[in-house]
């Protein structure tokens, strides 16, 4: 297989000057937007905003979210956390060593974003990222249902990742100009990483859709399984209305046009259609989850809850 291509996706060349054009697949929007000088892989530790920095700022009172911003940070933090938990399962099980590394990388990026957002959200009432991750119950999680959908086969995972990364890219891109400086800072780091995730998933959509008959069938099936959960991502509610008015976060519905256009370009090149499926009502933002989340949390939280109060 095209080992070099997948390896390149996992480890972008150091010599890029514009985005990461060395692995461009000719899809506009996929990896074409990054600022090369600000590549996520080349941020020096001194400049990168780490979850620990946010936790420190919060504990010193240097950063404190409003009620609304904290609730919003829980939403995006939970999205990333639940996805990281799903993706982590692929490590040591991927179709190729290069994908063990690539999916592991994406999981790590998502986990990093989750830790930052959750550390910030916890600033409201003094809870840590771990308090929020390990000691909340299912109905207290605010992730959209898409993120908890099972990995399925590789095509389902790629379909989910494709939707997630194009959604997150549009969201984070807008959050970089949030009136909330911490949200803007986290998003500025995250958007560069998510840009790579878009490229990775777009490349796989093309490969699977245009590889063999079997892979095409599986890719079509993957999108069919995932697409019912797309609409929830773009639904506005009272919270997003207030945040949008305050300039802290965009209305989810305002991301839809760019999402549709950019994913549409990749799908068109892959000769795929948007699946004709009915949208699920969703409810994750209000703590109403699909049946899958409980098992995921049970596994994730088991050890921490066995030893409450312990330090690791």
């Amino acid at each position, binding site marked *: *297989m095209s080992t070099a291509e997948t*390896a390149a996706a996992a480890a972008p060349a150091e010599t890029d000057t514009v985005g990461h054009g060395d692995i461009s697949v000719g899809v506009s929007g996929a990896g074409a937007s990054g600022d090369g000088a600000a590549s996520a892989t080349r941020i020096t530790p001194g400049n990168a905003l780490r979850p620990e920095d946010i936790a420190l700022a919060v504990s010193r009172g240097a950063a404190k979210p409003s009620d609304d911003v904290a609730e919003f940070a829980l939403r995006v933090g939970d999205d990333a956390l639940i996805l990281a938990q799903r993706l982590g*399962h692929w*490590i*040591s*099980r*991927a*179709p190729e060593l290069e994908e063990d590394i690539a999916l592991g990388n994406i999981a790590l990026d998502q986990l990093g974003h989750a830790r930052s957002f959750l550390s910030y959200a916890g600033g409201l009432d003094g809870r840590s990222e771990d308090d929020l991750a390990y000691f909340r119950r299912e109905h207290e999680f605010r992730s959209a249902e898409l993120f908890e959908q099972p990995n399925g086969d590789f095509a389902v995972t790629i379909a989910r990742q494709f939707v997630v990364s194009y959604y997150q890219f549009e969201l984070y891109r807008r959050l970089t100009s949030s009136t909330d400086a911490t949200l803007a800072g986290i998003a500025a780091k995250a958007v560069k990483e998510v840009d790579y995730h878009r490229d990775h998933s777009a490349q796989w959509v093309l490969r699977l859709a245009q590889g063999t008959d079997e892979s095409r069938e599986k890719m079509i099936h993957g999108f069919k399984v995932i697409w019912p959960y797309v609409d929830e991502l773009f639904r506005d509610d009272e919270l997003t209305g207030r945040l949008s008015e305050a300039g802290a976060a965009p209305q989810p519905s305002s991301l839809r046009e760019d999402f549709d256009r950019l994913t549409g370009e990749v799908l068109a090149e892959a000769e795929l259609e948007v699946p004709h499926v009915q949208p699920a009502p969703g409810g994750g933002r209000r703590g109403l989850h699909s049946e899958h989340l409980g098992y995921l949390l049970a596994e*994730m939280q*088991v050890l921490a809850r066995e030893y409450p109060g312990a330090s690791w």
Partner: protein
Amino acid sequence: MASQTLQSVPAEPSPARHEQSLEDAARRDAEGQAYFDKVMAEDSRIEPRDWMPPAYRKTLLRQISQHAHSEIIGMQPEANWISRAPSLKRKAILMAKVQDEAGHGLYLYSAAETLGQPRDAMMQDLMDGKAKYSSIFNYPARTWADMGAIGWMVDGAAIANQVPLCRASFGPYGRAMVRVCKEESFHQRQGFEILLELSNGTPEQKQMAQDAVNRWYAPALMMFGPPDDDSPNSKQSMAWNIKRFSNDELRNRFVGMMMEQVKVLGLTLPDKDIRFNEETKKWEHGPLDWDEFHEVLAGRGPCNAQRLERRREAHQNGAWVREAAAAYAEKQSRKQAEKESAA
């Protein structure tokens, strides 16, 4: 002496030189051997395109591919705890560590490929049970403390083994080891830190740490291979500048390192016979159960079947993906060729 003018002899006969006769081949072998001997005498490096003795090639291919397989199978016991890591920071560190191991596997397979065997073939040998990997990974990672013990002891033993390999006479292997060792030393530190945290935690946590150290101690010591008087290949490997120190030498050195560090951890090693021999100036340890070592090596360890099945399952489940990627790449290059011929 003639050795001043000796030059590398290419591993493959050059078509331009019309080396067809047996006599030519014999001359090439003699020239190649002379250059090889000089490299060994000067403790310098053999590169993939150089002529090398078939047994040297075979030994390296076996050792490097086994090393690569160990990295890949070694991902499993730790991947077992990614989903349950007790804090998000530990989860991130563990994910990064297991990911590093996939990376080590890749460097090593690439180094082995320079000796003429494709990765697919090596993988197939692993899945068919024809190739070996480090026995240690056939033990189960039962508790979170095992993440600490594996990092501290298993990666610690690996470092003790691998640092001298950075000077291995085969260039690609030595260079791969430089990078691998750098990452391994992070891995060892994170393992030590996990144990330290547990040891300073609740009594239950400390017990969990001690229990893990007890279980991993002997298997970690056996990672250095059988005792010197039962290690038939060691002598030749040392003559070829692949191996620099004997199994027992490395093992004893490692025991000494652990003895210092275990004090800081506030834990103990499950071996009452450890002592520093003032006469030999070497550390000594109690007897190890080599029967168990040979049993596990022969496939009768606690997790041998599970580890191989998991590798086979991942490989089989991924077959359609690899086929798709290959088919897509071929279609793309055909399109490209058509475009070029039309232009």
